[in-house]
């Protein structure tokens, strides 16, 4: 694809402030440098204003903060552990590797942090219904969970193809009382589920909150979703200081829309000696066209309400993404990541399906932890970063990496079993796996 010069976009001066030594923490939006904003139909602007206002007031309300803290503690199980991965680390150049255990949260991933916060905001706005989009089903399950806990009606939009492949996650959402609507428009994937959720929101905005699952979309979503995930980085920073007596050399996370990554990065944004790495889904390889490496190969554009990097063709049509990991299979990325990439505060690299699956197996066998395939991208990146750190010389045991283990891999067992050819040929599971389905 050819490169066309991009016109100078509006910018909030954040890049200049960073270069002058200013803080990057708690960026409020609507812009992150030249990214973010509200590229949305007028019909939804009032709802975004209401949400922004409610969020701003909630952040300053001790009752709200106490509610969030209590749910995090007694429902999600926070703080999540920071576990040193001794045997895995031997493959990462011998540096010390610590896993931030978001996989141990209720519902099995970091997603719960955001859905509880947003569901509480929905209640504060007097809304009785939440809608959500989901790819593999993780955010849908988390949304259905929060809705059940707080007594909200919940509707989840999910690509028809994903519904078929993730029949058990559809059943989970239904068990939790949510209605799942298969999306048959467009490419029938996550981006089309977001489109249909937005169409629902336009029509039902009086009663309905759109519980967006990642740190993307129109303002205030990117800053708000990050806010609810900041707890990951805050905890990790405190825990590493406690366990190792110093900050890490690097923090690694996987990036789809980028919510788990922005959550853990935030704790270290102003520690400029800590390198931040986001690992995107490289699919079959970034030179194959079948990938979801949005920052690596995308170009600035607007999708779903924000200006950010975007996988698009020369006509500005969104290009379909590909990844073995449904949670990273999205052709956009949160605007704050686009900004951090441009100013060089965080580095973004692709990890192929094959690299991710090798790291997946390695963590299983060295640590007895089955990671989500999304998180396996971060683990594969950690292996590379560890080897680079070790190659710098000195005692590798003096080097520290924290990797965000954003979710557990129970949902991915069928995919992994198929990938590693573990299923007997005549088993029902093999038949399901061969069709790309998950158990």
């Amino acid at each position, binding site marked *: 694809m050819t490169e*066309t*010069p991009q*016109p100078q976009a*509006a910018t909030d001066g954040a890049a200049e402030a960073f270069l002058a030594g200013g803080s990057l923490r708690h960026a409020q939006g609507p812009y992150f440098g030249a990214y973010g*904003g*509200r*590229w*949305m*139909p*007028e*019909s*939804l*602007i*009032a*709802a975004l*204003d209401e949400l922004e206002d409610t969020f701003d007031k909630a952040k300053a309300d001790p009752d709200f903060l106490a509610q969030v803290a209590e749910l995090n503690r007694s429902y999600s199980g926070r703080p999540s552990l920071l576990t040193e991965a001794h045997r895995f680390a031997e493959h990462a150049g011998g540096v010390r590797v610590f896993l931030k255990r978001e996989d141990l949260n209720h519902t099995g991933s970091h997603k719960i942090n955001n859905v509880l916060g947003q569901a509480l905001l929905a209640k504060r706005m007097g809304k009785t219904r939440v809608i959500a989009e989901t790819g593999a089903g993780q955010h849908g399950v988390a949304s259905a969970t929060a809705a059940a806990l707080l007594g909200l009606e919940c509707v989840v939009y999910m690509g028809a193809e994903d519904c078929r492949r993730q029949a058990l996650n559809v059943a989970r959402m239904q068990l939790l009382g949510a209605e799942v609507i298969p999306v048959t*428009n*467009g*490419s029938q994937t996550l*981006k*089309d589920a977001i*489109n249909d959720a*937005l*169409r629902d929101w*336009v*029509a*039902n*905005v*009086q009663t309905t909150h759109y519980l967006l699952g990642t740190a993307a979309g129109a303002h205030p979503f990117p800053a708000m979703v990050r806010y609810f995930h900041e707890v990951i980085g805050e905890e990790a920073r405190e825990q590493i200081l406690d366990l190792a007596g110093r900050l890490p050399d690097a923090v690694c996370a996987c990036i789809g829309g980028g919510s788990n990554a922005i959550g853990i990065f935030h704790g270290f944004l102003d520690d400029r000696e800590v390198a931040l790495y986001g690992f995107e889904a490289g699919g079959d390889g970034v030179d194959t066209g079948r990938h979801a490496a949005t920052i690596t190969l995308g*170009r*600035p*554009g*607007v*999708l*779903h309400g924000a200006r950010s990097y*975007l996988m*698009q063709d*020369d*006509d*500005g*049509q*969104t290009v379909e993404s590909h990844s073995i990991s449904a949670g990273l299979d999205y052709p956009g990325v949160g605007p704050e990541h686009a900004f951090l990439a441009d100013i060089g505060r965080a580095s973004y690299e692709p990890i192929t399906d094959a690299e991710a699956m090798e790291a997946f197996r390695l963590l299983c066998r060295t640590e007895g932890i089955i990671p989500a395939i999304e998180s396996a991208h971060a683990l594969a990146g950690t292996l590379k970063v560890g080897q680079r750190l070790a190659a710098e010389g000195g005692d590798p045991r003096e080097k520290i990496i924290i990797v965000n283990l954003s979710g557990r891999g129970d949902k991915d067992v069928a995919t992994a079993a198929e990938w590693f050819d573990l299923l007997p040929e005549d088993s029902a599971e093999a038949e399901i796996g061969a069709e790309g389905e998950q158990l």
Partner: protein
Amino acid sequence: MSKSAAAIERARAEGRTALIGYLPAGFPDVQTTIDAAVALAENGVDLIEIGIPYSDPVMDGAVIQQATVEALQNGFTVRQIFDVVEGITRRTDAAVLVMTYWNPVMRMGVREFAGRLAAAGGAGLITPDLVPDEAAEWMAVSEEFGLDRVFLVAPSSSPERMQSTVDSTRGFVYAVSIMGITGARSSVSSAAREVVAAAHQAGAERACVGLGVSTAEHVREIGAYADGVIVGTALVAALRDGGVPSVAALAKDLSTGTGKG
């Protein structure tokens, strides 16, 4: 002067409500779009709105989505929009606006897009996902090329936003009749009347109502308080089901509702 404003004022001078018809470009192919648009102009439509098919049309309902998906599958490219506009303006005097989601314009470059649209004889842009808050570049470029900026206002627009949107608009204000997406509805929401009244109060000289309008009766009802009426989905369905002759017949029927007498 604004081409859209001129078309609406011409209808007003003739004692009619301006009729605005929408068709997506390249459905089912570029030549049919041009022929169908010309048929609109010959059957009482004052302004023609041509949509650019886009991969993620969040403001569109099923009928228009299906049509634009088909256009893209048939190989429509954004650059062909200028062929469509030129093909229509060469054969009719109707004002031709382009309705587009913003990313295709941004991808080409706002200035290049505007220059080519103006050269093709286009009147301006209707922008469903671009609000004036994000439109600084488009505001400047549209002034440079004398193009219309049709922004949307909705039942949910606050008085402040109504004012700033009306102030940013050139041509006419697109009053969304209902909180929802495009698609024919059996009746037109009463909210439309209030949106138009608010737009007029904010100083809009021309406010046209769209979303859900599908019959001559709707046109007549809305014409009582609005300056123009926008019909989309019903025309797209007519084109899908009966080709250009059906589009011509529906336009002719809709235009019977435009008389204010």
